[in-house]
């Protein structure tokens, strides 16, 4: 069977966007365009009548929005539905309404003109903000403005569409999203918007697959076109080929089958048939994902990528800000562990640095950059220590390649502890320190490195990239990026064996952990825990529960003897078949 990677590589009809709500849909499109409102700015003679009209339009709008609010509450969690509460409140906003009324009196112009002008002023202010969520909010307010104007013009709302279509639009307001969902909409595609836009949040709550930020989707897609929306990967396939349709239909069916009975695994441990537990932890990018981590039954956070905070906050956050973020996460996940990885900046993740390197992946990144920027590093270490009072935080260093880097880091950590003591600040004196094993030098020296720290975590993505010397983003060579290469299997086995000699636990937190095909192999190789995207955890639990650890060990042993990737893949696939385990590869 082909992989998603291959399908997308070959597809010339793909449109890329942001995966906003998971799921796959195939269907006909409905191009949702808002009718452009014509604003009548002619003078009026009867002020009282204009004010009466305005009041009626407000009343009508409120009735409509109350209905939307009610549907939202029925379909979503209360906190999500609160998005609409603010919109309803705008219709009661004393300042806004007073301004509009007094301008109608003073300027003697059509209420629709005044309403448009007055609300647009606020929108302009919001659009000027650098925060992307404020731009989304300006979009939400557009909905209120148009709603009042439409009701002033006594026009009817056209949101009725044929059942079961995929809605394609330049933007979607929360109200659009909710109302359209009533027509059994199958999916959403929008030109604009990000992961945090209200439309994205609502699609996720409603379980409707969505791809947002697909730039010029509306110029490429015509009404009635057939499209495939892949809300897992953030792609749209326009007028798909027979082959693509078959591929995605199969994926979709598989996904439906796989979801059956998943819930029951929430409370269960990840135990093999013969009773061996493997801890399944969650990878967390932004702190907002914590709800998902808690509901998926993870045994903690195995990887919190702190560099994403820089994106969220927009700059290097202060020590206090970091303490708040880490403490919050630590309390929410308590008593399970939270593994905080120090900023992994550099390589492809260049943001606030203004130097250019000819070879960034082999240059100033990970721990190298931190040791070169002691102030940045120290601020983070102090914050992690200060947040560690629940004693469930672990700290992890990225891209360690020499033992010296561990020594230096430990020196800085000790220095921070000393400072905190003299400042009479509390911290976890036994804070566990670990390193990411993601370059060949660390893999080879796993035992010596393990001796220096409390735990190891294998970052499979980078490890494979550096072992095979392949940039997987480079189409010319990405075929060499092989998770099942004998090199990778043997390297993981070596790392685990060496760490075990020092009695240190080893986890794996790269994408390989989320590839269900790799699960028995990783289990057999003796990893203590796997960290993956929260959405994958229940699937992984189910697969693990149908594996016998003894057999997985035999499988791993056998795979260690192979020379070719294909032999290993065949062997693992046979393992699934022989043990009648229902699996999916890369479904999520």
């Amino acid at each position: 069977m082909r992989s998603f990677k291959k399908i997308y590589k070959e597809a010339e009809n793909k449109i890329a966007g942001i995966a906003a709500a998971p799921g796959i849909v195939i269907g006909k499109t409905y191009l949702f365009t808002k009718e452009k409102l014509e604003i009548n700015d002619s003078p009026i003679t009867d002020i009282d009548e204009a004010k009466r009209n305005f009041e009626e339009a407000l009343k009508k709008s409120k009735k409509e929005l109350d209905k939307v609010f009610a549907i939202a509450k029925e379909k979503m969690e209360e906190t999500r539905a609160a998005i609409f509460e603010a919109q309803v409140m705008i219709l009661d906003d004393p300042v806004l309404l007073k301004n509009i009324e007094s301008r109608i009196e003073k300027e003697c112009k059509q209420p629709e003109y005044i309403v448009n002008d007055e609300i647009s002023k606020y929108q302009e202010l919001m659009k000027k903000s650098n925060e992307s969520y404020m731009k989304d909010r300006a979009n939400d307010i557009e909905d209120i403005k148009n709603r009042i104007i439409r009701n002033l013009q006594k026009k009817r709302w056209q949101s009725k569409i044929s059942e079961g279509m995929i809605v394609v639009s330049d933007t979607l307001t929360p109200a659009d999203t909710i109302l359209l969902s009533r027509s059994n909409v199958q999916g959403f595609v929008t030109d604009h918007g990000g992961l945090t836009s209200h439309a994205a949040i609502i699609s996720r709550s409603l379980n409707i697959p969505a791809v947002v930020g697909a730039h010029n989707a509306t110029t490429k897609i015509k009404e009635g076109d057939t499209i495939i929306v892949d809300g897992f990967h953030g792609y749209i396939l326009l007028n798909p080929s027979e082959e693509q349709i078959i591929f995605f239909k199969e994926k979709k069916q598989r996904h439906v089958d796989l979801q059956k009975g998943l819930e029951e695994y929430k409370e269960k441990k990840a135990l093999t048939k013969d009773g061996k537990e493997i801890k399944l932890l969650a990878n967390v990018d932004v702190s907002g994902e914590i709800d998902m981590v808690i509901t998926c039954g993870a045994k903690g956070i195995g990887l919190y990528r702190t560099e994403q905070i820089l994106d969220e906050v927009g700059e290097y956050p202060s020590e206090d800000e970091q303490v708040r973020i880490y403490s919050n996460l630590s309390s929410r996940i308590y008593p399970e562990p939270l593994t905080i990885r120090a900023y992994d900046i550099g390589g492809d993740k260049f943001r606030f640095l203004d130097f250019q390197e000819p070879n960034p992946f082999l240059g100033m990144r990970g721990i190298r950059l931190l040791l070169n920027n002691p102030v940045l590093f120290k601020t983070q270490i102090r914050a992690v220590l200060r947040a560690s009072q629940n004693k469930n935080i672990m700290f992890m260093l990225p891209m360690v390649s020499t033992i010296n880097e561990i020594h230096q880091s430990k020196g800085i950590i000790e220095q921070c502890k000393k400072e905190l003591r003299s400042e009479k600040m509390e911290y976890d004196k036994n804070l566990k320190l670990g390193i990411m094993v993601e370059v060949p030098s660390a893999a080879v020296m796993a035992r010596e490195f393990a001796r220096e720290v409390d735990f190891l975590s294998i970052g499979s993505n980078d490890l494979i990239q550096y072992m095979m010397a392949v940039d997987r983003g480079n189409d010319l060579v990405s075929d060499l990026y092989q998770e099942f290469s004998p090199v990778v299997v043997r390297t993981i086995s070596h790392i685990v064996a060496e760490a075990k000699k020092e009695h240190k636990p080893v986890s794996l937190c790269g994408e390989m952990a989320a590839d269900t095909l790799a699960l028995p192999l990783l289990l057999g190789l003796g990893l203590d825990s796997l960290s993956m995207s929260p959405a994958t955890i229940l699937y992984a639990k189910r697969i693990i529960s149908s594996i016998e650890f003894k057999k997985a060990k035999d499988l791993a042993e056998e795979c260690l003897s192979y020379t070719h990737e294909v032999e290993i893949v065949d062997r693992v696939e046979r393992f699934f078949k022989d043990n009648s385990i229902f699996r999916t590869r890369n479904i999520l």
Partner: protein
Amino acid sequence: MIEVTVKIINQAGLHTRPAATIVKLASKYQCDFFISRDGLNINGKSIIGVMTMAAAMGSELTLSFDGPDEKAASQEIIDYFNRGFDEL
């Protein structure tokens, strides 16, 4: 009149839900309530105004309360800011 500077400490900033709560709290009181930042001064009883504040985590706002029940109003609202809008 009571004037206090507060800092936004929750991660998502002054987003839609806390904006709505602030307005609801303020509306219970008679006193005038204004929020200002960077030269922008808005009425804290106006939801559209509070939404426009665009206050991200770490930003500082000046709150002013003026009227007979200013003390009670300021206590309740400042407390809500200090609790990080109950999101911490």
